[in-house]
């Protein structure tokens, strides 16, 4: 499908690994300590999934998502929750991107403001982070008993996560550098 050389693949792998480490460290050092009003905690490591271009093999995204979630679980002491939520988000990312990409998009389009425009990208990021946060908070509470608390925590964290993701994308896109 794609004609990457081994060198390209190693570079792409190392770039993704760098993103992963950076996001996990940021999560551990910064975002895990953010609890706005006791509810909202941003989890922007889902941004890693937003980076994968159109046409990426699904097993690759699933594995990246799973291991990224697992790593964050290890540093956040939430074993399994992040991994499960990230795996689900990684599962829905390719069809969502296919759905929301512009009609004339390249076969290996990298999602960004420049390739998708601002609002379509925000919409795409919103859906992926929504799926991730929904799965995450459902697994964490594991009950609908305190449904109001659950909803507040979920919605506020989702919006905060989306905000951080869009901000990261803005910073990255501002440098006009595609992954």
């Amino acid at each position, binding site marked *: 499908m794609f004609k990457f050389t081994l060198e390209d693949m190693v570079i792409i792998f190392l770039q993704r690994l760098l993103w992963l480490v950076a996001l996990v460290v940021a999560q551990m050092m910064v975002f895990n300590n953010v609890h706005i009003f006791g509810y909202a905690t941003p989890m922007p490591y889902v941004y890693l999934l937003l980076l994968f271009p159109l046409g990426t093999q699904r097993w690759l995204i699933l594995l990246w998502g799973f291991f990224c979630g697992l790593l964050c679980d290890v540093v956040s002491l939430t074993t399994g929750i992040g991994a*499960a939520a990230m795996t689900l988000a990684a599962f829905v990312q390719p069809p969502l991107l296919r759905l929301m990409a512009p009609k004339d998009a390249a076969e290996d389009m990298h999602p960004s403001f420049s390739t998708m425009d601002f609002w379509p990208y925000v919409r795409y990021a919103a859906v992926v982070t929504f799926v991730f946060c929904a799965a995450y908070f459902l697994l964490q509470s594991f009950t609908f008993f305190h449904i109001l608390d659950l909803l507040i925590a979920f919605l506020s964290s989702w919006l905060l996560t989306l905000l951080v993701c869009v901000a990261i994308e803005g910073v990255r896109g501002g440098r006009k550098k595609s992954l």
Partner: protein
Amino acid sequence: MRALLDFIVRYYHWFLFLALEGLSLVLLFRFNHYQSSVWLTTANTVVGHMDTWQQQALRYVNLGKENQELMRRNLVLEYNISLLTDQLAKLTHDSTFTERRQAERFDSLNMIPARIVTNSVLYRNNFLTIDVGERDGVQPEMGVVCGTGIVGIIYMTSDHFSIVLPLLNSRSHISCRLRGTGYFGYLKWDGRHPMYAVLDDIPRHAHFKVGDIVETSGFSNVFPPGIFVGKVSAIENSDDGLSYKLFVHLGTDFSRLQNVAVVAQEFQPEVKALEERADSLAAKN
């Protein structure tokens, strides 16, 4: 096979997704007490509900068989109840103190059971016929009793039948005493009420009261001593004024009499022969 392989290759991401999610959930439940406890209770509740539904369905299917079993059981129980009711009736019927004492006393005697063939209570001189005779060992002068008291004395016998001179006959007189005191007299019937007889010749210095028990004295050797006859119901002076005349409410209801027993006293013939010899000696002198 090829189609299967194609299917797996085509949807491999589904299998990978499910495997990774499964692994995540295993980790989740393995390392998080809260989720694992909730999971276990939820799973148990679900399993419990499913078990309940299954049991209900099975019970419904088995209703026919259970119904049959219940019906069979019901029949057995009803049969048992009828048996027990009979036994209870027998036991409670015989349970008054007097009746039990009477039964114990009768147990120690040589009894010949008999049934009443003809009976009357209407006349001044009544007679009974019973279905045992000399072939059964019945002799004249033997006593006849029933479960509630005395009946009378054998008057005549044939091979298979006997005629009883009951208490309700003006010629009957039976030696009786007041239980516990030893004062005795002769029980006669005044021909009036079949439930009452008169005990004569009780001395004036005797102490007793209405309700005292009258029993056989054993002096005549017809009845063994101590068999219940009745209770004192009224006290009068005798015609000559020298003794008391007691009205006795009899224990035996002659108008309902059906089953009786002849009392065979072991030494009765010997005693009778001795008395006859004494009489003849007295006559000679």
